[in-house]
């Protein structure tokens, strides 16, 4: 059940990201017609997304219109910033393989590897 919900949330977000204008529950349901979702299901999913803060809604007449709170790219870079330890105060939550480093450091690393490579080649001969 939980996986199905996650799956739906993702599908709904994909629909919202694809359109530029805010959508009603009915419109979202229609865009996902191949899934044959009940109106209430779509509403529940949109409600959950709104609670998570990734979707905002505005009233228009009798219907709510939903839109993504930020673009997909914005979320991806937020995650990347978290991961690379660039957002201060978030340490210990995630452990990145390598935190971001300066160009000079990277250069130093390349040289080190090249040197070592040369040595091991020589020792093999």
């Amino acid at each position: 059940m939980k996986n199905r919900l996650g799956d739906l949330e993702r599908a709904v977000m994909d629909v919202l990201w694809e359109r530029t204008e805010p959508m009603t529950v009915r419109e979202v349901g229609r865009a996902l017609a191949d899934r044959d979702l009940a109106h209430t299901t779509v509403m529940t999913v949109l409600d959950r997304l709104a609670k998570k803060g990734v979707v905002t809604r505005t009233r228009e007449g009798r219907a709510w219109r939903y839109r993504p709170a930020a673009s997909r790219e914005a979320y991806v870079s937020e995650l990347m910033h978290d991961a690379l330890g660039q957002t201060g105060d978030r340490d210990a939550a995630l452990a990145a393989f390598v935190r971001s480093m300066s160009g000079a450091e990277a250069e130093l690393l390349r040289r080190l590897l090249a040197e070592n490579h040369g040595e091991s080649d020589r020792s093999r001969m």
Partner: protein
Amino acid sequence: MVVAALLTAIAVGCLIAAHLLLSARWPSRGPHVAVVAWQALGLAWGVSTIGALLAFGLAPYGLGVLHGLTALVRDAAANGLRLDVLSEGHFAATRVAALVAAVLLTLVLFWGLAVSFLQVVRTRRRHRALLELVAHEHPEVPGARVLDHPAAAAYCLPGVLNPQIVISAGALEVLDRRELAAVLAHEHAHLRQRHDLVLLPFSSLKRAFPRVRIMERCYNAVALLIEMCADDHARRHHSPRELATALVRFGAAGGAAVPAGAMAVVPNEQQPEVLARVSRLLNPVQLSRRATAAVLSGSVALMASTLTLWHLPM
């Protein structure tokens, strides 16, 4: 008073040892043992500092720390918190101040731990929710999620129920298959050994004492050691050279492509961390068995003597 003096000596000794450990070279040869040493130092420092303050404050009871505390609580329960015994004799005010300081320090430490824990839980929850929406599966990395971003990154999101390993499209681009496997093994080690829990107390110490630079340096040292532990784990099944190459490729691909902004947050003192990891992967030297045993028994002795001093009725 002897107990107070001894506990003070231990507390100061812990600080000196921490300084020495920060500049020592052996930890990179035995990262697991070094992490144990850091944990013992951290714990012993907290317990001995609080103990020293209590021992001084409770000296009039003549019962030591633990029994003195019981006596104080019993007194307070019987006569209300009038601290009768303490306000007699010399240094009465100083003794009360020491007791207050001990209570405050305890609160700060626990508060820091609680806040860190909550912060971590909150960050992870949001991270997980967003990941659910924007990351996708990839046939090349079964079990991991992929983020469509050109910068190279690989990380894990620890958790009891649903730990996850995430890798960026940029990382898939720069790594070959065997390097990728080594990186994934490294991340698996983090998840399996719950390295995040090892790091948590140190991150909370850093939070509790934000102005104290040694706390931050200790945190960074432990964080680096944990990476080394995961590196060691990964190289049991993968060649260290592949892991080292992966590190270098990340370094070359990572920084440039990430939109600049908060780059300055990255700590960059002494030897660059990645360089330290690469060089020990390429020239592995193990800590000798005797040194390992010495560090471990030292850590046990430190904890044991601190706890014993808490129990001594004098």
